[in-house]
C-alpha cells in the first residue's frame, strides 16, 4: 500500500502566473509521455515480473512518478493562480478554462483527455522493459521541448530536475533489462517469456 508524504520531491515556487506555459506543461500530467502514464505503466507491469530486482525497480520508479505527477500539478496550479479573465482569453487558456476553470485535469497539450491507451502492459519482460526505456526517452524529449519554450527560471528549475530523473530512470531500466537477459539463454533471449512460460529464465 501507499502512504502520502506532505512534501514535494523537489521544490516548486513560481512567482509569476503564466497560463500559456501551463497549457503546454500540462502535457506532462495527462499527455502521451506524461508522468501519470509513466506511473500507471510501471505499477501495472510489475506484477508478473519474474526477478526481484525488476519488481523492485518498477515499484520504486512507479512510486516516484506519482511524486512527479504532484510536482507537475503544483507547477500548473502555481502558473494559473490569480488570473484575470483578460489574461485567460489572451493566453489561449480559455479553451481549458471553460471546461475546468483552474482545476487540475489530466490532458495533453492539445487538450485530449488522459487515456490508458498511452501505455502498454504486454506481460513480457523484455518487451515491457523496452517500452519503459522508450517512455523515459520520450518524456526526456518532452521536457527538452518545454525547456526550449519556457523562459521563467522558477519554472525551468523544477522542469530540469524532472528531465534529469528521466535519464536516471532510463539507466535503471537498462540495468533491469541486462539482469533479465543474464537469466535467459544468451543465444536466444526470445526463446521463451519468463513472465509466462514455465522453466524459462530461472535464476542461476
Amino acid at each position: 500500500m501507499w502512504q502520502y508524504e506532505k512534501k514535494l520531491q523537489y521544490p516548486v515556487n513560481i512567482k509569476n502566473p503564466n497560463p500559456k506555459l501551463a497549457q503546454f506543461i500540462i502535457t506532462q500530467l495527462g499527455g502521451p509521455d506524461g508522468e501519470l502514464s509513466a506511473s500507471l505503466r510501471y505499477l501495472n507491469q510489475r506484477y508478473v515480473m519474474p526477478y526481484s530486482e525488476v519488481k523492485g525497480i518498477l515499484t520504486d520508479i512507479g512510486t516516484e512518478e506519482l511524486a512527479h505527477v504532484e510536482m507537475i500539478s503544483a507547477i500548473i496550479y502555481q502558473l494559473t493562480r490569480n488570473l484575470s479573465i483578460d489574461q485567460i482569453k489572451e493566453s489561449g487558456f480559455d479553451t481549458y478554462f471553460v471546461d475546468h476553470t483552474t482545476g487540475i485535469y489530466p490532458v495533453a497539450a492539445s487538450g485530449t483527455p488522459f487515456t490508458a491507451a498511452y501505455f502498454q502492459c504486454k506481460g513480457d519482460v523484455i518487451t515491457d522493459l523496452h517500452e519503459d526505456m522508450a517512455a523515459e526517452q520520450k518524456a526526456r524529449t518532452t521536457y527538452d521541448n518545454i525547456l526550449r519554450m519556457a523562459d521563467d527560471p522558477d519554472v525551468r528549475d523544477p522542469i530540469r530536475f524532472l528531465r534529469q530523473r528521466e535519464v536516471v530512470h532510463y539507466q535503471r531500466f537498462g540495468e533491469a533489462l541486462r539482469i533479465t537477459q543474464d537469466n535467459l539463454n544468451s543465444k536466444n533471449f526470445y526463446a521463451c517469456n519468463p513472465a509466462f512460460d514455465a522453466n524459462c529464465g530461472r535464476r542461476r
Partner: protein
Amino acid sequence: MNERQILFNKIQKYSFAIKELNLYLDTHPDCRRALALFNKYNALLKDAEAEFNSRFGPITPLQTNDTQHWSWIDEPWPWERG
C-alpha cells in the same frame, strides 16, 4: 499461522485502525477521543513494525539497515502472498 503471519496480521490491523482514524480526524480535527485512539494505535504500530523489521525484514525502504545486501527487494512481494 506462523509467527511472521501473526505479527504481520497485527501490523495490518493497527495500520487499518490508523487509516480509519486518519480519515475521521480529517473531518473532526478537534475530537480528543479520536486523537487519543490515533496516538494509541500509532504507538502499537511502531512497536510491531520495529519487531517485524528486526526479525523478518523491511515493509518500507526506510526500514532497512543493510550493509551487505539490499533486503528491500527480497521476496515475497505483497501481491505474491495469499
